């Protein structure tokens, strides 16, 4: 029996146009979800470090619930579960964006908390002693420094969330993995096609890594 396997380059290249149709969905869900997740992260991250206990506990609850459950379960809950409550279907892309948002938001809350708490107490005291209000001190003194320290961790979370969108093939979103699965169903070139899928994820994540590294270098001035 001939077990020699030839990597079918032609099949790999042929799959590209088809796979590329999935890229916009992957990007939309990733970056749409991360943008909302970033806002959620700032909101809950700051609540988390509030001096008021009654503001801290909702933040702790949010973080623990969405960090402690799998993103796959979250998207299944949103896509199949929530419609029972709402009485109408939820679009798969919307469900994907929502899942990335609440999931990354929980992690980003902790990143925001760590970043803000890492700023020396003297910075706040200097701002207040100059007559800046607490809000001004946060906005002009604490936050710009905290944000720079958060960039590497935010980059990590971005990459994790981009890869998490691959799970959403299960609810039928036509993202990269789903496109690959459909294509393989007709051509049976699993090796070639999944390799192309992997390469496309790499291109997206490497681009993000490089962009963040540049941003970080720019932000290093004076640090």
């Amino acid at each position, binding site marked *: 029996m001939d077990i020699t396997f030839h990597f079918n380059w032609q099949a790999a290249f042929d799959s590209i146009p088809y796979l590329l149709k999935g890229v916009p969905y992957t990007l939309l869900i990733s970056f749409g979800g991360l943008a909302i997740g970033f806002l959620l992260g700032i909101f809950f991250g700051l609540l988390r470090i509030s001096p008021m206990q009654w503001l801290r506990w909702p933040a702790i609850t949010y973080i623990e619930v969405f960090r402690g459950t799998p993103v796959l379960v979250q998207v299944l809950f949103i896509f199949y579960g929530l419609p029972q409550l709402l009485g109408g279907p939820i679009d798969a892309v919307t469900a994907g964006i929502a899942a990335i948002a609440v999931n990354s938001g929980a992690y980003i809350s902790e990143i925001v908390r760590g970043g803000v708490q890492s700023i020396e107490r*003297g910075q706040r*005291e200097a701002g*207040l*002693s*100059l*007559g800046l209000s607490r809000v001004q001190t946060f906005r002009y003194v604490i936050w710009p*420094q905290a944000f720079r320290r958060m960039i590497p961790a935010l980059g990590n979370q971005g990459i994790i969330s981009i890869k998490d969108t691959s799970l959403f093939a299960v609810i039928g979103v036509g993202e990269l993995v789903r496109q690959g699965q459909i294509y393989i169903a007709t051509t049976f070139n699993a090796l070639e096609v999944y390799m192309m899928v992997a390469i496309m994820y790499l291109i997206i994540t490497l681009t993000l890594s490089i962009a963040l590294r540049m941003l970080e270098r720019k932000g290093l001035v*004076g640090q």
Partner: protein
Amino acid sequence: MNKDTTLSRSSVDTNATPIVSMQKLNKHFGKLHVLKDVDLEVTPGEVVVIIGASGSGKSTMIRCINGLEEFQKGQLTVDGNSLSPDGKANRALQQIRTEVGMVFQQFNLFPHLSVLDNVTLSPMKVRNTPRAEATQTANRLLERVGIADQSDKYPTQLSGGQQQRVALARALAMEPRLMLFDEPTSALDPEMIGEVLDAMRELAREGMTMVIVTHEMNFAREVADRVIYIHKGEIVEQGTPEDVFDNPQNERTQSFLARVLTH
């Protein structure tokens, strides 16, 4: 020793309303009673130097003046604004902080802002001073403390002594009526202490009201109108530098001075 204290002393008008009035101030950190019935009045133009061992409460005492520390009992009025015990951030506190400048042991410059932006930030945000005017004032102040040519640099590119002088310029940009100094030379290398003390000396000579916590006894003797010795949260002795340094009455002051002045 070269003593030229006449200039700063002549500017003190002892009949004027005190700019700081602290009455029976008490502060606790948990079970620790850090300030015990502290009374302090500072007259406009006066230079008050507070000395004492570390942990005696001297830093805490001046940090109460601009509300960086809360107190639990007593009365505190700064330039007509009264702070209540355990006072949360309120209008009086905000008002006090715009009129009282502070220089910290660790400088606490804003590392993400250039030297110039460090100095212009609060006039622009708190007083709504236009940028051009704030920049002009900042340059004048930076020149005065001897760092005019460094205004585009970032704090970490400067030496400790230069950073502390920027911090002084930053505080002066708000045109404070009172300046607090919390061990301004304690984090500096010995060769840089002189330049910071010179800038402070200059300020005292111009009649600025100053409350200074320091371990620099020669400097205290030279610039102070009044020296206060604090021990375990209590003021045990105060008077002119001559009274306190040359003829201390309290035995705790005597033993403290014996320890710090012999080396």
